[in-house]
């Protein structure tokens, strides 16, 4: 859900940015180390972490040994957290991905979330003796979310487009990996709300009959039948994913060209973080 945070957790333990890590929502509970030793790091937000009851910091790597207990509680400033393990997780890719699509039970580890009693398969059973790494977590900025308008912005009249760009929406409790439903200004359709079903991507802002936007997230379907007023740029989607119910959301229109510049800046920033922490270089292409 938040690729930058995934890249940071991986960089902290010396992994490639796209290595598989555990994603959790709100809290991750307690994990017992069964390997002789392993190095882990948590990113995403200010998650309350303890090891054997002693407080530890997120955004820092830590080396743990067999029998130790890592507890990951909540964060006040995030939804999604990432637990990366040096060496990565031993997960067989499916359709070219080690991600889990929980809704359909595809991919990842048996197609489902880890449950109490499960063992997480690691690739490396021992931690290296390299120095520990840490990074200053920059707080999520309260900036508008950049949107490339369309492809069905012609389904809305000028007043509704203006209202969409001027309004403050709120994140609601109806949020999951597939979509975030917002609450706020009701948009009027100029040509009805049924389009001929066409392709969608994560970031698409669908406006169904209710007139209230739904943002498609990482587990978006491949097609949809509601008009899409715009698409949130990739660089801003992870930041939106981290907003808790009640958080305010504003949109700002950008051109295709501006969107490409934003994307380049986003990938460059990911690369700088990885390099600063001494992890292998990011491939500039094909995240995920």
């Amino acid at each position, binding site marked *: 859900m938040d690729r930058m945070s995934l890249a940071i957790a991986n960089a902290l333990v010396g992994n490639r940015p796209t290595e598989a890590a555990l994603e959790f929502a709100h809290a991750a509970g307690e994990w017992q180390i069964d390997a002789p030793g392993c190095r882990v790091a948590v990113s995403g937000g200010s998650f309350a972490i303890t090891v054997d009851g002693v407080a530890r910091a997120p955004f820092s790597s830590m080396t743990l040994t067999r029998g130790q207990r890592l507890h990951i509680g909540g964060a006040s400033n995030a939804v999604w957290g990432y637990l990366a393990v040096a060496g990565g997780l031993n997960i067989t890719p499916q359709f070219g991905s080690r991600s889990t699509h929980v*809704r*359909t*039970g595809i991919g990842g580890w048996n197609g489902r979330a880890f449950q109490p009693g499960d063992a997480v398969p690691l690739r490396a059973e021992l931690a290296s003796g390299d120095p520990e790494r840490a990074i200053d977590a920059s707080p999520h900025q309260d900036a508008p979310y950049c949107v490339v308008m369309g492809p069905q912005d012609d389904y809305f009249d000028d007043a509704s487009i203006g209202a969409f760009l001027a309004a403050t929406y709120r994140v609601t409790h109806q949020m999951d990996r597939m979509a975030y439903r917002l609450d706020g200004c009701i948009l009027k359709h100029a040509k009805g709300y049924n389009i001929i079903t*066409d*392709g969608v991507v994560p970031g698409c802002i669908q406006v169904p009959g209710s007139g209230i936007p739904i943002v498609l997230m990482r587990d978006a*379907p491949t097609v*949809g039948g509601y008009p899409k007023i715009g698409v949130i740029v990739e660089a801003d989607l992870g930041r939106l994913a981290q907003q808790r119910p009640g958080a305010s959301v504003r949109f700002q229109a950008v051109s295709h060209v501006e969107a490409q510049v934003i994307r380049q800046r986003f990938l460059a920033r990911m690369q700088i973080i990885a390099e600063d922490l001494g992890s292998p270089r990011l491939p*500039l*292409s*094909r995240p995920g």
Partner: protein
Amino acid sequence: LDRAIAASNIPGIIETAPSFRSLLIIYEPETIAADALVDELGKLIAQGLRARIVAGRSWTVPVAYGSPTDADLLEVSAATGLSREEVVAVHSSAEYQVYFVGFVPGLPVLGGLPPTLHLPRRPDPRPGIQAGCVMIGGMQGLIVPVTMPSGWYILGQTPLRCYSASADDPFLFRPGDRIRFRAVTAREADELSGLPGEEFLDPEP
């Protein structure tokens, strides 16, 4: 165009998603800029796409109508003015074409629904529609591959599975395939369950 792209060497294209009247192209702007990609696509189109209806395969899909629930079938009957039996007869007499596969993995979106069965979608989608449900909505039909939400109407259930993670090709249907539905009893459906999808291919003419 989708096939022409697949056969081309245009760099930077990650994925394409065809649908009724559009083709979504997901690409990496780091590898190919948008205007360069548009140029490349223009060249492909200029070469002549020879759009052809692919000779798809023909399937006969067994359906236990009224299963797992009769409620939707009765609702469709009431909304269309057809009897329950007529709804089944109309739905199972038509030939459908798979226009595209998507929404969730392996879901065939079917054209060819007879106009007497065209109905608006439900105002609100219902969650938890089970794999195997044979549904109609608007002017279209579909078969549910995995549990999903849907605002369409359930006419019946097929033992056929259109998504199977362990199969060589996990997706049973392909765009261009043709489907007919055959009414079977719930007992027959039970007996047919677990058979490989290929069992339901029509013999080659």
